[in-house]
């Protein structure tokens, strides 16, 4: 066993870090609010910069513009990006759709789409959840009817992050309504500029427009936009979800917030201190340090196993649960330390740390909910990991 990085890994982390030093504004605290043009432009600029340096899709094979980087390197990349709260990561294209097309896509699809993901040109979004299909994803009702020369799509997708900025969407739609729920679904690629698509903003409880409702009304898409076989989209779609499920972003965000709190607590030398530092403050911060480091190691274990060719499904679920929970514990303690100031919202007079902890706490209420609720993850851990009986 060893718990440090190799020289090569360290070197990469340093290079990425100094790249971000150059790219991020001096007073950048993130997270990016992609509905703001300045933040979106920053996202695009960083994404193209990452692409230029070969980092955006470094885990892809050389054939598609990658560098065959190990899952470990990929996690180091994700950790550093999240620690800096930097935008431009593009997990939809690089981490989800790209690997799926490599496995299930046609030669033409790979040629057509992978290049523009690797260069950072095309923004993808993910059209999975529907108003009545959340945890129970197989119950989606959006229909794609084969009319002979194209598919005709009708239905509604919801909680679609970045749909308001995306060029393309990969979506699950029902292509055989008479089949079993899992068997009549197909994975399709949709140009967001197609006539009949309406993107309606949804504002989240932090007051930010991060996701959308996307309504499809008689939307035509070419037949060649089907990924994999007709009615076999569930397999391809779930593969995508496996790429999605890792807690490293949360573990890194938790570390960033914890370090910010430690720094703030130590450097409050104003005459009337807002943080009444006492022995228990240090103990609580130490307790959180343990939680965050444990979560981080859980995430790296997933990458280690992936690097050996395993599919660590239960471990990935564990990492998502512990990292989302650790982040929330850090944010909650931040609010506790800030006391009366903790509930001043961003933009308030007399706010401390720009009201950031409050906004983050509101925003990351979504952590234990999205990408498979933590309850669903615990079912996976219990049933697939511990092999507990289902009934």
């Amino acid at each position: 066993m060893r718990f440090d990085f190799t020289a090569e890994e360290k070197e990469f982390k340093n290079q990425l870090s100094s790249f971000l030093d150059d790219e991020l504004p001096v007073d950048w605290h993130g997270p990016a609010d992609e509905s703001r043009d300045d933040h979106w432009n920053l996202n695009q600029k960083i994404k193209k910069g990452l692409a230029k340096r070969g980092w955006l899709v470094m885990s892809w094979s050389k054939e598609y513009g990658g560098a065959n980087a190990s899952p470990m390197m990929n996690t180091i990349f994700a950790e550093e990006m999240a620690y800096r709260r930097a935008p431009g990561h593009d997990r939809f294209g690089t981490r989800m759709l790209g690997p799926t097309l490599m496995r299930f896509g046609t030669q033409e699809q790979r040629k057509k789409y992978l290049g523009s993901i690797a260069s950072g040109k095309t923004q993808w979004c993910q059209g999975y959840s529907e108003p009545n299909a959340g945890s129970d994803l197989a119950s989606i009702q959006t229909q794609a009817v084969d009319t002979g020369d194209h598919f005709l799509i009708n239905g509604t997708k919801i909680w679609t992050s970045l749909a308001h900025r995306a060029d393309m969407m990969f979506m699950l739609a029902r292509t055989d309504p008479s089949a079993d729920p899992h068997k009549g679904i197909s994975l399709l690629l949709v140009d967001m500029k197609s006539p009949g698509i309406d993107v309606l903003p949804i504002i989240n409880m932090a007051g930010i427009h991060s996701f959308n409702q996307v309504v499809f009304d008689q939307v035509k898409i070419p037949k060649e936009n089907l990924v994999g076989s007709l009615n076999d989209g569930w397999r391809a779609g779930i593969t995508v979800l496996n790429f999605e499920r890792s807690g490293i972003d949360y573990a890194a965000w938790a570390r960033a917030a914890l370090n910010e709190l430690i720094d703030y607590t130590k450097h409050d030398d104003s005459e009337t201190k807002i943080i009444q530092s006492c022995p228990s403050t240090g103990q609580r911060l130490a307790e959180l340090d343990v939680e965050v480091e444990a979560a981080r190691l859980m995430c790296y274990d997933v990458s280690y196993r992936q690097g050996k060719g395993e599919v660590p499904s239960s471990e990935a679920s564990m990492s998502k649960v512990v990292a989302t929970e650790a982040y929330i514990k850090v944010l909650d303690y931040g609010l506790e330390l800030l006391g009366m100031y903790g509930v001043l919202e961003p933009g308030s007079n007399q706010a401390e740390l720009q009201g950031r902890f409050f906004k983050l706490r509101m925003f990351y209420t979504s952590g234990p909910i999205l990408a498979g609720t933590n309850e669903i993850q615990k079912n996976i851990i219990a049933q697939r990991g511990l092999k507990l009986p289902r009934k």
Partner: protein
Amino acid sequence: MNFGLTETQEMIRGSAREFLLENSSPETIRSIGDGDQDAISTLWQAFVDLGWPALIIAEEYGGTGLGFTDLAVLLEEIGANLAPTPLVESSISSWVIGRYGSKYIKSEFLPKVASGEILITPALVERDASWDPKTTKAAAIKSNSNLIISGEKRFVSFAENATHALTLVRMQHGDLAMVVAPIWKMPEVEQTRLKHASGVPVSSIKFNEFEVSDLNVIAINDQAIQAAYELISAGSVARSAQLVGIGRKVVDTTVEYTTNREQFGRPVASFQAIQHHLAEMAIATKQTRHLTYAAACSFSSDGYSPEAAARAKIAASDKIAKVCWTAHQCHGAIGFTWEHDLHLYTRRALAWKTDYGDPVFHQSLLANLMGF
């Protein structure tokens, strides 16, 4: 022991529910959150017409003469509805004035509070955000029969609507004094509005050599400190009662949503993971309720139980915030939207977690009372 409501309390609860349902809609609450001052005035005037600010004021001063528990029953309903009005601020101020004020002070202020002519709000916290009265720095200099006050009070709820602030100042010799200071449209009293999660108007107020008659002094020295602690305890129990209302409402809403929401062909409430969440939410709300009413019942014209008040606030602060977060988990994505009302309850619960002292403050108080 008797855990039931009296006839009067049943009546208060019934009329509060009926009134709030009709006059304090989610739209009203949101518009007040967005800064609609007229909506606050309209709602508050209706509260005055119903006699609610007069509820715990003694009959000899124009009040109804009911007790703190009766008030708690009303506040629980207001908490469940989220109605943004200064009933807590007004009630606890009049309570402390009734307990510590001179005959003159009481006849001067209480009848006007009861009739809605004036509104008094507590202003205790300063820049360090500490609820410990002994940390008071705002200074008062005696000049003939006036006090000249200078200093800043932060996190004052409804300062924009209040005519007076019930505040603490430090005299030249270091003694504390509790004063009722007029603040309505006073050029020497500067107000700074804060963007506060509670969704009610909260401001900081700054006294710039502001002259107040010494007739407005309610208590000095140890009496002032005692009065300040009673104000904090009363505020804690009042907030706890509102938090009980929030917990109850959030449990009900979550039971309803998870029962109607189906996934995997069955209500999500039929899954054990969700049932356990809901069971814990229900337990937490009930625990808070018992501790809160035990504390409310301890308030009388002879005194109150500071232990019970601290226990209530510790439980209400921690447990009801947790109830709200668990409700978000049970609601999934829909409860994460701005459009859904759940976050209004969560914001309120978080804001009130620290108001009148957070759990750490009250744990210290309680430990102190235990002799540590």
